[in-house]
């Protein structure tokens, strides 16, 4: 399929990932345009849905109109974190299959005032894949939702749809735990997102071919790092090299390390940002970490967000801190 036009995440706009979390970003937001967050991370079971439910609850309680979208179409379970029964209720698949035209009507109420949820497609047609057109239409509709903040809970893995939602967001969060498997998947996720953005930003066919080759870590051209790739691209076309640098400057995901048990594991976040800087040349924002807390699984079992069930727990404190840092509330 051929891409037509420029993806919206290539143009400079409010909330460009280079300038996250500043109060004036929020103030400058026209009331009708929702700020979009997307939470991904590559590996499953690392607490993405837990984090999304709790970030959203904190934001809603501070007076923001929040809508969550469970974009994990194959394994939707965000509703359970919020104490909502999905049953046969209206979901994203009703929107994709055009049974409902107005996306706002797909957002159902949750027990938390100010917080609504768009269910994943669980239990309907079982179709977990979306087309580029469906995603573009969804994203356009999301921008028009009557909300201050929309948060995508992304699927595990690096599917094209997952990466597209991540790149479209004003703020993309990569979640990991301190385990090697989760960290490896977080890098894979960042790498996929970075190269996807790069491929869309550069137009020269030779350069695009080079990026395709470089995405294979063991490629024959000996391109190991984005630095090698940049050097190779500049030999083909200097202007494309400048565009590459521009992508580097504006790509600024946030990192959250979940289930941290000690100081060593807090430092893991600094280490990951250092590797990203030295390997990709990109500045990752270490947005925060959430300490390992028995209250977390208790709250998941209770099907209530941690910040409501155990507001004084360490875990809740660290979630509030991340929201405060990004929204200034």
């Amino acid at each position, binding site marked *: 399929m051929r891409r037509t036009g420029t993806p919206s995440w290539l143009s400079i706009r409010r909330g460009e990932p280079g300038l996250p979390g500043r109060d004036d970003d929020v103030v400058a937001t026209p009331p009708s345009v929702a700020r979009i967050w997307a939470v991904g991370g590559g590996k499953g079971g690392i607490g993405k849905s837990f984090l999304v439910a709790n970030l959203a609850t904190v934001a809603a309680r501070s007076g923001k109109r929040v809508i969550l979208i469970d974009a994990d179409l194959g394994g939707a379970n965000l509703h359970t974190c919020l104490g909502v029964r999905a049953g046969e209720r209206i979901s994203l698949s009703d929107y994709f299959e055009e049974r409902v035209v107005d996306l706002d009507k797909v957002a159902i109420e949750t027990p938390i005032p100010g917080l609504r949820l768009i269910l994943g497609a669980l239990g309907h047609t079982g179709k977990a894949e979306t087309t580029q057109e469906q995603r573009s239409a969804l994203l356009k509709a999301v921008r028009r939702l009557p909300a201050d903040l929309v948060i995508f809970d992304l699927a595990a893995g690096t599917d094209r749809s997952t990466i597209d939602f991540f790149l479209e967001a004003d703020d993309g969060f990569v979640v990991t735990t301190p385990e*090697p498997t989760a960290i490896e998947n977080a890098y894979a996720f960042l790498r996929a997102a970075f190269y996807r953005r790069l491929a869309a930003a550069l137009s020269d066919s030779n350069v695009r071919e080079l990026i395709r080759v470089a995405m294979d870590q063991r490629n024959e051209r000996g391109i190991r790092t984005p630095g090698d790739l940049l050097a190779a691209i500049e030999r083909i076309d200097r202007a494309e090299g400048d565009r590459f640098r521009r992508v580097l400057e504006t790509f600024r995901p946030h990192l959250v390390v979940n289930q941290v048990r000690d100081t060593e594991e*807090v430092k893991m976040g*600094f280490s990951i940002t250092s590797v990203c800087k030295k390997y990709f040349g990109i500045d990752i924002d270490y947005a925060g970490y959430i300490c390992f807390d028995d209250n977390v699984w208790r709250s998941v079992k209770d099907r209530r967000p941690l910040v409501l069930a155990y507001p004084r727990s360490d875990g809740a404190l660290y979630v509030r801190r991340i929201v405060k840092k990004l929204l200034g509330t």
Partner: protein
Amino acid sequence: MRPLAEQSYYELLEAPAEGTPQQIERAYRIARATYSPSSTATYSVFSADESAAILRRIEEAYAVLSDARLRREYDARLRRVEPRAGVPTVPSPPPPAAPIRERVPAPAARLEAPAGADLEGGLAPENGVFDGDVLRRIRVSLGIELEEIATTTKINEHHLRSIEGNRYELLPPPVYLRGFLKQIAKCLSLDAGRVADSYTARMRESSARRD
């Protein structure tokens, strides 16, 4: 993005060019842990050889930046190069301890905040009180071990533990305690006076309640 060989010592350690010796020390500890052979953060990205090469450069950077005299000389050479950034420069003579063979690049135009500076900000206590819990959380959020504070401040680790644990009955007399609190605050880049005032006020409240 600059190849490793062209990064300044500050870029290598990801430390601010105006960083205090404590910030340099901290940046070094994090860098060393990150690129050590057993590091979880690097093994899936860098090969063992690549990590070893980065680590060698980090050790080289630390050898210079942790030595006040060598750092002054290095800073002076950086400043001489800076006005003509991008223009080939005559290589400056290497310092005696750690020879630098490659061209010394200009430091980044924007001073980088020390790693984690923004993490600590968000931990300012919600009720404005710096008690032991808050100090511990801030320390942990900066990735600083108790042992590091003990080494820097020469305060015995058991005192540090008692301070963080709010074990007032075990603390030294107030005049020493204030000094300790101020030194800890400095390690955590906090306002020393405010931390000492807040902690001791909370301690007095607590003992007044018990009486």
